[in-house]
């Protein structure tokens, strides 16, 4: 029982750390992408409806979405490399 608890706590920290990085970090990057896209689109996308469009916002949004796609790709690679889930 004590052995198992030790192993589990040790694993829990690793899962929490990886979870925060990928499971909360990637959505945050995605949100940043949405924010940039709204800034880039301007007009009705922002709450202040008279905002001007900014082309740089679109580029930044593209970068954010790229990071997210790479992150998902890494996740898929983990599934394949680990050979399934125990």
């Amino acid at each position, binding site marked *: *029982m004590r*052995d*198992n*608890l030790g*192993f*589990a706590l040790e*694993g*829990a920290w*690793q*899962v*929490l750390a*990886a*979870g*925060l*990085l*990928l*499971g*909360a970090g*990637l*959505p*945050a990057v*995605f*949100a*940043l*992408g*949405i*924010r940039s*896209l*709204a800034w880039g*689109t301007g007009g*009705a*996308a*922002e*709450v202040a409806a008279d905002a001007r469009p900014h082309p740089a916002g679109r580029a930044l949004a593209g970068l954010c979405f790229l990071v*997210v796609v790479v992150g*998902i790709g890494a*996740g*898929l690679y*983990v*599934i*394949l490399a*680990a*050979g*399934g*889930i*125990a």
Partner: protein
Amino acid sequence: MTEATLILVLVIGTALAFDFTNGFHDTGNAMATSIATGALRPKVAVALSAALNLVGAFLSVEVALTVTNAVVKVQDSSGAPRPELTADHGYALLLIILAGLVGGVLWNLLTWLIGLPSSSSHALFGGLIGATIAGLGTAGVNWNGDGSKLDGVVGKVILPALMSPVIAGAVAAVGTWLVFRITAGVAERFTENGFRWGQIGSASLVSLAHGTNDAQKTMGVITLALIAGGHWSDTGAVPFWVKLSCALAIALGTYLGGWRIIRTLGKGLVEISSPQGMAAEASSAAVILASSHLGFALSTTHVATGSILGSGVGKPGAQVRWGIAGRMVAAWLITLPAAGVVGAAMWWLGHLLGGYAGPLVVFAVLAALAAYMFRRSQAQPVHPGNVNDEWDGTPSTARRQEVTA
């Protein structure tokens, strides 16, 4: 047909039935939030999830033959059944597996009927543990492992069940909070649309992981039964037809959609919006993948429920129906013992009658109770047309038991 062949056929049939219930029981884990926010139409969501489960089942290249070793001692470390159980073409072992599977299926159907997401792996393990205690005594159960790694009922079932929902919930809460902070000031009509795409992507990842994770367990059980019966000898591989039939069973179950459970997860816990849905599914996917990478067993149901609750905690001003969450936790706590009691009862029934009659009567009990629960479900059906109705407005089964606040 000999007694041993009959029981083997019944074991395979019941295992595929379990895989099928596993599919529709867990559709909601991946797709409930996407259906609730309207990111995907209900039928499209279950079709996508089913396809990804099918693909995921074939991705599981690691042989899951030792899946029962985590909780019961019916195999040696190579995956071969223990020799004392394989006399008489494995009748003794097959009866334990059959009784365990029946316990798992019945618990899955009952929790589906009352719309509660509960862990299919716990139901399977519970059934097997109960049948093993009945058949071999408590010494047949691997309670704690040997202390060299995370193992046994405590290490592979109980501790992950306590920890994984909390971790998933914390990750989802942080993710939701960040997302709402970052997008504050962007018009909602703009964010809802963008986050729907993020939601579809993250939910797809959860579906894929589910197929890899859960179909494997049934493949391992069927292959164990084949080895016990002397029809297969390679402990390093699963026969192709087993892989194919398990993949199809879980995908079909997923496509059928456990609408009662989808409704509870998508509408019952939290009024969910697209950003929350994306944060919840991203948390589930990350926690499941990270755990699998580190070699920890966990239940996708526990993770998904924790994530959805976390997304409610993380959104400023969101309301979480803790009463429903409490009922779910209660169901989780009794899943293992309840499935175990059914598994044990079925073993005794089968053992008492023995011969041809034992397994046939056990199977008949399963069929009769399954038909009864299906009929009960028709009294208040939940389907793609009403799955998203207001939680308080429609007379769903779950709502009748809810105490009005």
